[in-house]
């Protein structure tokens, strides 16, 4: 019987059954055999097996990607795997980034076939879709069974070092690479056909999808810093205690505006955090660690800036759809422009 392909599985601290946000700084560790969802994957593989699992905390992976890669290098030297499966991370931003970064290293530095399982809204998809093979998943762990099923099918097709085949290509996000094919109509004929459809008021699919991220003009501070009014904005989910305006803890649909006239800093008994994406204990102890109002007031007093804008703006940056982010950003921008704010310090978690 042919030897089975060796699969290494990458999981975060939660799916790796170490802990929740409290374990987000877990350093990478390696366990022989499958862990958590890796067991389901392993049970569905015929020509391969999950020989081991790398588990790492999301914060550690985000802040120390090179250390995770070094750890991975050591695992490869010991285990000599054929395939790396990372995630599925669904819509988790930090976990998705860790999966994608690891896959990119696996592919570029070590020549190992790999895939990451991500939801299309995950920031890692747009950043890495052209570099690595990303399998589409649903937005959260309700889609785990389907994701594992798809991953096991892809691994079962594995041969000649390539996980993606014509048969399973539709399971992956397109890389945006152009493939030459012959068409009976010339490009000019097809372009005219599309134009005619559009002129008649119909719809036509484009043959080339424009890139998602568009360059924008860099805004410039039009006066000296000492003459500028500076506003503090955050997507760390800052809310007054009790969250009376009900800012969402994920998928924010709005932003909140707080008057901080006369406040020397953010006092811990007045503020809270409603955000699912990070361990809030440090910011709850001192909200200035998120929104540095105390420090900005210092610069107002010493004249480094002219004025602290009297409002702090807060929203929640986790699992927020891009279209909503853009809308919120424009509304905030318009409001600040109308209020003659000169510049913004935006803190993200």
């Amino acid at each position, binding site marked *: 019987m042919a030897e089975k392909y060796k699969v290494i599985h990458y999981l975060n601290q939660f799916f790796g059954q170490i802990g929740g946000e409290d374990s987000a700084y877990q350093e990478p560790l390696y366990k022989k055999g499958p862990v958590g969802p890796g067991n389901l994957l392993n049970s569905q593989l015929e020509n391969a097996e999950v020989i081991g699992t790398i588990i790492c905390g999301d*914060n550690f992976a985000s802040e120390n990607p090179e250390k995770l890669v070094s750890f991975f290098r050591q695992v490869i030297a010991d285990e000599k795997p054929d395939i790396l499966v990372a995630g599925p991370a669904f819509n988790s931003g930090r976990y998705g980034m860790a999966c994608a970064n690891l896959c990119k290293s696996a592919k570029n530095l070590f020549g190992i076939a790999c895939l990451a399982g991500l939801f299309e809204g995950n920031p890692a998809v747009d950043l890495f879709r052209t570099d690595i093979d990303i399998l589409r998943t649903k937005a959260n762990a309700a889609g785990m069974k389907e994701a594992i099923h798809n991953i096991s099918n892809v691994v079962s097709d594995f041969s000649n070092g390539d996980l993606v085949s014509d048969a399973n290509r539709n399971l992956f996000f397109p890389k945006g690479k152009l493939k030459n094919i012959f068409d009976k109509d010339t490009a000019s004929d097809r372009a005219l056909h599309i134009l005619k459809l559009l002129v008649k008021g119909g719809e036509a699919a484009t043959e080339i999808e424009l890139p998602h*991220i568009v360059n924008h003009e860099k*805004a410039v501070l039009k006066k000296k810093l000492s003459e500028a009014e500076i506003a503090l904005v955050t997507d760390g989910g800052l809310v007054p205690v009790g969250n009376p305006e009900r800012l969402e803890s994920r998928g924010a649909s709005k932003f909140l505006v707080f008057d901080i006239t006369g406040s020397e800093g953010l006092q811990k008994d007045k503020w809270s955090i409603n955000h699912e994406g990070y361990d809030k204990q440090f*910011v709850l102890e*001192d909200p200035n660690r998120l929104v540095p109002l105390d*420090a*900005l007031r210092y610069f107002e007093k010493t004249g480094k800036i002219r004025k602290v804008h009297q409002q702090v703006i807060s929203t929640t940056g986790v699992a927020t759809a891009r279209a909503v982010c853009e809308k919120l950003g424009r509304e905030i921008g318009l409001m600040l422009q109308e209020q003659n704010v000169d510049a913004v310090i935006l803190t993200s*978690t």
Partner: protein
Amino acid sequence: MIANEIERYHIPVVQVTSIPQISQGMKVNRIFEGNGITHPFGVPKEKAENERQIRIKMLSEALEMLCH
């Protein structure tokens, strides 16, 4: 993304983040690296007054980025 949208209104933004890679991918113009996802402007292991001084220094650097 919020940073880029605010900049459409000619207001320069410095984004303070502990995952600069995401902001770079989104083509944010001014990125200042925070001191950790859970405390971008904090240093919890320091005494309060030391931490405040460090925060002042960090914010000073972030403000200077607005001038470039």
